[in-house]
């Protein structure tokens, strides 16, 4: 796979944005866009710099980085202060600078703010450095440019609009260029567009004749002064409109003449192109721009909670301000002799107003700034784990799993719906010829001595193809009898393979002597041709009129008389060839049901035997094709050929007419046999699907493939099975029929649900048209739903989508076939709209991009089909089976950790902050803090951050193996049980309780008390010390209780932060520091004098126990009285843990024999027309044939 062209998109961690260009506010991208808005039409002239420069088109340099050395600080700070949390703290800082309001020193806010800003800044800077590097790498790639009649090497970034560049085979296209000429006949150029749209098959581009005459004549090219007028840059990959004005003639230009940036040149030695769009104007870059911000459920919840907290905060401040007003009236007024407050009493409301703000400053910590930073760090850490996981590394591709978005991790633990592509995702998109039936005999199974069928494993001996030098070494076949039959010269077997080697539209390329490379439109065809090749019927090359086959070492040239191409109605294709001996033979392959109709009546017996074999193949989940032939006499053919010619030149209904002509000759055929191709599933797909379904995850398959194939695969991977009560197939053509089919399906699934009395139906009729949540419904059995693209289009309309959703959600499996990329996204949106669930879309091709972007989480498989899906995805890896690990292990842990973190964090800050509130009642509501200001500055970021961070980076309630063994453990995440509004309220109540304990226990114990030496202990500083130490110990113990997995790091951080607290405290209260800055460090000696008192420690111990005990009792009783499902599983696991883990049960693949899948063709029209027109043939065909066969032209 060619990836080197796109290194810029492999930037490791992009903050909140999946695609780098997205938030490029000031970069050239935006400038380009703003200019594009003005640009009505693009006008350029080849080889005319002065002319083109007038328009100031951007050059080919791209910049995805945001900052440079000088702009980093201002820009980054500006961005950071756009975040609410940071802005809030800036606001607080400003408040603190107002002396009338200031209740805390400036550093309590500045220290955390600076820490937070610098941490984010460093991360942004690192991200940007990566971008700089990849930009540099990309911009400095070499490309050949025509300068003054000479070919010169230039860097990519120096290419300008209007330049003529030379591209060579396997080059990545530098910019969007207009193809001028190429080495191939008719200036054809083959390109691979994998990076653009994900399709790996070759595409052809052809230059205008007028430009193709330029050839590689540098002089001509240099004097080429063609003018291009075309549309301004846009993001439509398959559209281009423009005209070329050359020598006063106008030529229309379309997409077929364009080579787009990101494509790769294939099978073409060289080509010349005129740069039309460069850099950020290219379609590739224009396409990369639109990315939706993805935010997790928890983000949304957090926003709501933070809003609540703000209200709560405002409420507290109000209470305290009013309290202050009252206090002032009753006590403060008289206390004036010791504290005159002249200005305050001039207007009684003023002091109340000021106190409100003062308390806002003090109590700001309920909305902790470090929350956001910590959440980011946790997500980042958990993303790294995904990148590092060896069990998600795929050795054959050398591809590790990658988290492209680092902000969605915990949602991986909440997935309820998975939407999957089929081809390349569930299947490998590799077709393997594994069985066949020839002349009534079945080949492909291996039997042991006793005649028992053996299972084919890695060790099974393969058929030795060494006798055939042209054999493909990757092909393996196990049944030796077939090779023997070939060697023996069995005429039917020979004919069978001959037909396979002739009847196809594959193109071949001989790279070196004996090394053939087939370029097929569909992998099925390639598999068949390769099989024939290995058995000694090597398709060697073709011209427009001949096919060269090396039959058992002998080169034979067949004249190609006609290709009767495939289409969806015919479901077959045929070729008519003339053998070297002069016989005219028609070879046909197609769906068995179709071929059956066209066979000669003498084949009846063979037909029956073959049918049995076909049933057997189908039962194994193989894709089958029947192969037949017919000998034609010269006369019949000539007659037919004339008709064919007439039909092919007719202007109206050519398709239909051709079809009829084809039918005339495709009859009375003799059956040769049948092929069986395995659409190989990826490893572990059925097991993964079973586990996902046990984890209560619904899997929907959305594929562009045909119904038969999709259903076949669904059976193969256990999504559908014969045990199901019914599998509904919705395949109606019009809207009312679709509705009818859907309704009858619903009636069957849940009898009575069509009635008005059904609660859900009633709910739906009552519900408003928009924004309601679909209730859960349970069907009476297990059902499957297969819906076709046409029907889906109707079903997705506004009036029917709810109906569709109801049925689909009741089904165990849903398969949508022949869906367009847009429909894929629509289905995802539908579920997102009416179900409050987290969705995941997984796919590998460009057609999956839309759904990957639409789903909450997009997963790209970095497999065969290019990079597009991976680039659009949030997570990527190489195999579908890694999904179970991503969700059940990483997702589950991330969710668990995030929830633990949030619960703890809110608790910790409420307990911390509310103590101030209580103290207000005892300090005249004067906004006096209860802690040392340094403690306030350090509490969140230094003292309590590391233990909780360690917990959230390492915690695991059970290890990965158990998580996979008990998929039930995944369920709490789906229903968001570990952190929701209820849990939040619990945390808050617990926080309030703790703050009460934290205030009143020290209050009680120091009230009227003294040190054991009779000296002060109830002074403010000692009191602050006792309260803050208790708080810190309580907070740390609480982390300890939450930690289920004590690694050394946890131990180190937990004990370490306690030690750090005490040592920092001694430092901050030390003589040296306090004497140096007596105003900033006021607590001189407090630690030394208080901490030697036993009653201080007894107070701390009492606070801790009183804080922890109720939780312990609550949890114990909950576990005993109301254990959740997960608790029970966990208990079971703890019991099992004493014994080693038994190996996971193997998922047995159940096959059924009732189905048939008969497709082995390309999805679109074949190359047939291109082949017979001879356009794509090189003139240097080795095996020339006479001109005498001109009947077909």
């Amino acid at each position, binding site marked *: 796979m060619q990836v080197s062209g796109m290194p810029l998109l492999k930037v490791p961690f992009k903050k909140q944005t999946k695609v780098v260009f997205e938030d490029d506010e000031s970069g050239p991208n935006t400038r380009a866009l703003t200019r594009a808005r003005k640009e009505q039409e693009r006008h350029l002239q080849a080889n005319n710099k002065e002319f083109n420069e007038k328009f100031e088109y951007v050059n080919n340099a791209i910049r995805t980085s945001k900052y440079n050395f000088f702009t980093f600080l201002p820009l980054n700070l500006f961005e950071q202060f756009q975040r609410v949390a940071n802005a809030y703290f800036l606001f607080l800082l400003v408040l603190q600078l107002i002396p009338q309001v200031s209740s805390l020193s400036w550093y309590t806010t500045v220290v955390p703010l600076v820490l937070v800003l610098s941490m984010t800044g460093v991360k942004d800077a690192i991200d940007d450095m990566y971008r700089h590097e990849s930009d540099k790498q990309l911009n400095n790639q070499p490309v050949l440019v025509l300068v003054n009649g000479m070919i010169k090497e230039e860097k990519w970034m120096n290419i300008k609009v209007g330049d003529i560049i030379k591209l060579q085979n396997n080059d990545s296209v530098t910019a969007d260029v207009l193809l001028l000429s190429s080495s191939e006949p008719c200036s054809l150029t083959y390109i691979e567009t994998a990076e653009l749209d994900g399709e790996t098959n070759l595409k052809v581009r052809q230059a205008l004749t007028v430009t193709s005459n330029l050839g590689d004549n540098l002089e001509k090219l240099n004097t080429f002064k063609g003018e291009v007028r075309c549309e301004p840059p846009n993001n439509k990959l398959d559209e281009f409109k423009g005209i070329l004005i050359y020598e006063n003639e106008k030529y229309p230009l379309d997409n077929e003449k364009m080579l787009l940036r990101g494509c790769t040149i294939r099978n073409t030695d060289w080509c010349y192109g005129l740069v039309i769009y460069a850099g950020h104007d290219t379609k590739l870059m224009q396409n990369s721009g639109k990315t939706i911000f993805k935010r997790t459920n928890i983000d949304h919840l957090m926003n709501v909670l933070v809003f609540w907290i703000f209200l709560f905060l405002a409420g507290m401040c109000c209470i305290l301000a009013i309290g202050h007003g009252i206090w002032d009236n009753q006590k403060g007024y008289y206390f004036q002799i010791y504290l005159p407050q002249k200005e305050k009493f001039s207007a009684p409301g003023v002091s109340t107003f000021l106190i409100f703000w003062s308390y806002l400053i003090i109590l700001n910590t309920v909305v902790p700034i470090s929350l956001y930073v910590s959440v980011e760090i946790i997500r980042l850490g958990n993303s790294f784990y995904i990148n590092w*996981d060896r069990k998600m590394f795929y050795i054959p591709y050398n591809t590790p799993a990658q988290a492209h978005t680092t902000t969605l991790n915990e949602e991986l633990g909440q997935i309820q719906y998975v939407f999957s592509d089929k081809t390349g995702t569930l299947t490998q998109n590799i077709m393997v010829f594994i069985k066949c039936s020839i002349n009534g005999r079945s080949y492909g199974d291996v039997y042991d001595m006793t005649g028992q069928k053996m299972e084919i494993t890695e060790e099974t001996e393969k058929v030795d193809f060494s006798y055939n030098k042209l054999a493909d070494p990757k092909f393996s076949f196990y049944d030796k009898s077939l090779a023997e039959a070939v060697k023996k010269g069995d005429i039917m077997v020979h004919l069978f393979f001959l037909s396979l080697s002739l009847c196809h539209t594959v193109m071949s390329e001989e790279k070196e002597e004996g090394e053939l490379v087939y370029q097929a439109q569909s992998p099925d065809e390639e598999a068949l041709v390769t099989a024939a090749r290995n058995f000694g019927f090597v398709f060697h090359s073709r011209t427009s009129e001949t096919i060269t086959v090396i039959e058992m070492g002998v080169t034979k040239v067949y004249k190609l008389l006609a290709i009767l191409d495939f289409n969806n109605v015919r479901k077959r294709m045929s070729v008519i060839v003339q053998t070297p001996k002069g016989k005219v033979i028609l070879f046909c392959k197609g769906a068995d049901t179709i071929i059956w109709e066209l066979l000669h009546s003498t084949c009846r017996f063979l037909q029956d035997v073959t049918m049995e074999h076909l049933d057997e193949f189908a039962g194994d989940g193989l894709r089958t094709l029947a192969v037949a032939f017919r000998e034609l006499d010269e006369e019949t053919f000539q007659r037919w050929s004339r008709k064919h010619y007439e039909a092919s030149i007719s202007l109206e209904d050519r398709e239909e007419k051709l079809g009829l002509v084809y039918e005339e000759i495709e009859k009375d055929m003799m059956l040769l046999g049948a092929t069986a191709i395995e659409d190989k599933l990826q490893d572990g797909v059925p097991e993964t699907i079973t586990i996902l379904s046990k984890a209560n995850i619904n899997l929907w398959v959305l594929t562009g493939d045909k119904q038969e194939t999709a259903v076949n695969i669904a059976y193969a991977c256990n999504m559908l099975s014969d045990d199901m009560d019914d599998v509904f197939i919705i395949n109606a053509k019009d809207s009312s029929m679709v509705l009818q089919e859907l309704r009858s399906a619903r009636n069957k699934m849940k009898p009575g649900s069509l009635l008005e009395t059904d609660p859900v139906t009633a709910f739906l009729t009552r519900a408003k048209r928009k924004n309601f949540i679909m209730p859960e419904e349970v069907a009476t059995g297990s059902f499957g739903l297969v819906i076709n693209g046409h029907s889906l289009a109707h079903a997705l309309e506004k009036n029917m989508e709810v109906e569709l959703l109801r049925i689909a959600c009741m089904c165990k499996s849903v398969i949508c076939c022949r869906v367009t990329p847009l429909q894929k996204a629509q289905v995802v949106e539908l579920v997102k709209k009416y179900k409050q669930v987290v969705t995941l879309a997984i796919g590998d091709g460009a057609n999956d991009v839309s759904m990957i972007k639409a789903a909450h989480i997009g997963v790209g498989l970095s497999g065969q089909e290019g990079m597009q899906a991976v680039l659009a995805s949030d997570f990527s890896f190489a195999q579908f089976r890694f999904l179970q690990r991503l969700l059940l292990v990483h997702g589950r842990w991330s969710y668990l950790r995030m929830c633990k973190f949030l619960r703890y964090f809110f608790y910790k800050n409420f307990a911390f902050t509310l103590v101030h509130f209580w103290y207000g009642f005892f300090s005249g509501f004067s906004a006096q803090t209860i802690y040392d200001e340094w403690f306030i500055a350090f509490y969140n970021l230094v003292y309590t951050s590391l233990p909780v961070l360690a917990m959230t980076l390492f915690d695991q309630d059970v290890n990965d193996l158990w998580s996979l063994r008990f998929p039930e453990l995944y369920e709490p995440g789906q229903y968001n049980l570990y952190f929701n509004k209820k849990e939040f309220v619990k945390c808050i109540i617990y926080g309030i309780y703790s703050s009460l304990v934290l205030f009143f226990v020290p209050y009680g114990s120091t009230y009227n008390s003294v040190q054991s030496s009779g000296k002060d202990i109830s002074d403010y500083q000692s009191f602050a010390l006792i309260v803050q130490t208790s708080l810190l110990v309580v907070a740390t113990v609480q982390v300890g209780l939450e930690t289920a997995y004590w690694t050394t790091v946890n131990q180190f951080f937990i004990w370490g932060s306690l030690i750090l607290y005490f040592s920092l405290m001694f430092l901050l209260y030390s003589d040296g520091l306090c004497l140096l800055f007596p105003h900033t460090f006021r607590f001189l000696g407090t630690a030394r004098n208080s901490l030697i008192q036993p009653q201080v420690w007894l107070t701390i111990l009492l606070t801790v126990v009183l804080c922890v005990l109720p939780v312990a009792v609550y949890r114990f009783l909950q576990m005993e009285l109301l254990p959740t499902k997960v608790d029970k599983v966990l208990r079971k696991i703890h019991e099992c843990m004493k014994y080693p883990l038994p190996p996971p049960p193997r998922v047995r693949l159940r096959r059924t024999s009732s189905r048939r899948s008969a497709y082995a063709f390309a999805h679109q029209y074949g190359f047939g027309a291109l082949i017979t027109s001879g356009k794509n043939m090189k003139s240097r065909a080795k095996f020339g044939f006479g001109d005498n066969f001109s009947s077909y032209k």
Partner: protein
Amino acid sequence: MKSRKSRGLPSKMPDNTAFKQQQLPAWRPHLTPRTVLSGFFTTGAFFLGMGILLILSAKSIKEIEITYTDICSNCSKLRENASNFYKECNCSIHFIIPEKMPGNVYMYYKLHNFYQNYHQYIMSRNNRQLLGEDITNVENCAPFQRTSNGIPIVPCGAIANSMFNDTILLSYYPNSSTRINVPLLSSDITWWTDKHVKFQNPKSSNLSSAFAGTAKPPYWRKPIYQLDQENPENNGFLNSDFIVWMRAAALPTFKKLYRRIHRIQQFADGLPAGNYSFDIAYNFPVTVFKGEKGIVLSTVTWSGGKNFFLGIAYTVTGAMTWLAAFSMMAVHLKLKKKQESLQH
């Protein structure tokens, strides 16, 4: 990278470290009902024991508290009027110590309703000035920074200005005719760090010259260098009463150490039971802000002063822990039985 290649591993294969594979060796504490319950019982036992111990030790403390705002109501009245600032007012209170107060006896003054923790009040001081380095530095001392003539106030600020300035003498009457002044010590009533580090007099041979050019706080009768006329060492910022006062209290009701009983002669073992009197020079107005003041005589133990809170709290917590433990055990056993009966 080299070693990886030599081992034939793919180049992008993640490292096989315990950290990266999330397989760090770890201790997984698994709480069984047994461990939880035994933890509860142990905690309960410890708390009950400690609670009883604390109650007993608090009980052993002898304490006498006399609030004299009302007893000396004349003086209280007098002080309500600021114009009587320089008028002296004395007040004598007779009381009986019913039981001997053994060991060290401490004398405290106690204030009610006095908001030393009020934000503007507690911040109104200048620690740098109190270090004696730059005594004219009156920053942060609003509203008591300078006199109306602009002379810096030393010590500045609201705390210093409002210093408690009653003098209290304790007399013992072994019999009706004899009166012995109980010897009181003003030394060692502050934290060592306060007296030796946090508060420093300006370096000068003569204190009064050191404080020249400064004004006394408006509510003070004497300048800072004349606070203790008996002991010249106990003057300036190093005056013990001053230091004690400057350590602001956390709560609006507080007591501060005033004197220690000097354990000599009759008082070597503490204060004997009998008749006593306080002779108070009543200077500190409290009724204006609806406050009260009192004197406390108290012994101490290892756990501090006479405060039953900790003892009671420990006992109650211990008892509750046990109660919880018993009920949890009951629940656990009942459920276990139910499960077992289900299994059979």
